[in-house]
């Protein structure tokens, strides 16, 4: 299956240098959301964008390191979740490989995939760390209500996490694809590290007039 092509490593210097940039976008995206007091995390825009632009490895490594750095500086509890960020980057990389970022139906697919990865991936960690809570007050209220209604623990924990991820990942994916759409043409294929699919001609990068 051609999907594996997306994972074939072709690390150019450009791709390497892109990873820290994606990590910085993750951080700044979150910092802006916080400073605007938006009720969302928006802390994986760089990861998703990296995946779309340069394939699963760039997105995955960016997500992974974003979490490791935040756990080494501001939030130690983020460390276990770095695996999920890695998977999110992979998801975006696969979506990018399949060209999902180019049309609205693909955006929905990318959103659902990222949402499933984030919510399914986080739930076991939530159960191990926080007895099932996501530690987001509104979502935890949902968990409490479900548990009181005798919904099984795992389902309630999943609902808790999913209720937080649904909108957050929708906005994250939307912002990432909007960024992609807004890039100058020469950037769209510049960073791509994966083997191109058979049906798309390889375009070469160009430069601004200088």
């Amino acid at each position, binding site marked *: 299956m051609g999907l594996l092509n997306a994972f074939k490593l072709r690390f150019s210097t450009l791709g390497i240098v892109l990873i820290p940039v994606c990590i910085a976008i993750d951080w700044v995206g979150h910092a802006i959301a916080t400073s605007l007091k938006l009720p969302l995390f928006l802390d994986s825009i760089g990861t998703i964008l990296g995946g779309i632009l340069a394939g699963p490895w760039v997105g995955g490594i960016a997500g992974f390191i974003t979490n490791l750095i935040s756990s080494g500086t501001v939030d130690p509890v983020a460390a276990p979740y770095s695996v999920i960020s890695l998977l999110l980057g992979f998801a975006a990389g696969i979506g990018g490989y399949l060209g999902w970022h180019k049309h609205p139906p693909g955006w929905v697919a990318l959103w659902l995939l990222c949402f499933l990865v984030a919510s399914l991936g986080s739930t076991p960690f939530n159960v191990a760390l926080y007895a099932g809570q996501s530690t987001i007050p509104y979502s935890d209220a949902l968990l409490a209500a479900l548990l009181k209604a005798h919904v099984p623990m795992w389902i309630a924990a999943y609902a808790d996490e999913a209720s937080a991820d649904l909108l957050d990942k929708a906005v994250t994916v939307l912002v990432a694809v909007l960024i992609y759409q807004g890039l100058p043409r020469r950037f769209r294929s510049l960073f791509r590290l994966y083997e191109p699919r058979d049906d798309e001609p390889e*375009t*070469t*990068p*160009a*430069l601004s007039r*200088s």
Partner: protein
Amino acid sequence: MTAALTMRGVRYRYPDTTDYVLDGIDIVVQPGEWLGVVGATNAGKSTFCYAAMGLATEFFHGRLIGEIEVLGTEVRRQTVIERSTRVGMLFQNPFTQVSGARERVDDEVAFGPENHGLEPALVKARVAEALQQVGLSELRDRHPLDLSGGQLQRLALASLLAMHPELLLLDEPTSQLDPGGTKELFEALSRLHAAGVTIVMVEQKLEAVAELCDRVVALAQGRILADGTPARVFNDAAVQQQVGAPIYVRLAESVGLPSPWPTTFETAVRAFNA
């Protein structure tokens, strides 16, 4: 003696474009020369450097016609990385040239030599020497990003010098610097020139080019408009019209002094006193 840089019939266009940004360049740069490359925006000056460094073919791809020989080797027969021990290139923006991975000025300079696998004692000597050459020895323990723009650009220069290049390609190295930073960078370059390093410098500051360079090439639409000593090139009517000239030329012309008009401060003082 092998030329530092030779271009024969060089034409280059970026991918997905039809216009040739370089459109028939013939030039030979001799070892030890300080060549100034001038031209209006979009004349192909940066591309000239990219082509000589091998970035045009290796990094941007696109189409290159003609021959480019750098220090005796055809440009396509070597990678940029292989070339990097003999040819250094300085870019416009000092911030993008910091490796970003080092926390001290001297470690930053060591980045290149270490990539090339030099042994630690040699790296240390090279770093000390390079910092000395650009006048940054005092700041060796500072964080690179605590330096001013001008100091940062000299740090980028030192990072190249630590690899002992024979040829330096400079793409508008002062365009983002204030007058103080510009002056310091030019002083460092003058010392290198005196030490025999070949310099090819794209530069907008025409007064500085006239003052410093042995030879000037004026580009327009990817072609060589004029090539020769600064005094000759800046007295060329086509150059004056399409590229501009040091302010002294314009002043002398307006006053009605007989040509050739002065291109440097010293010659201007003499010409106006006469």
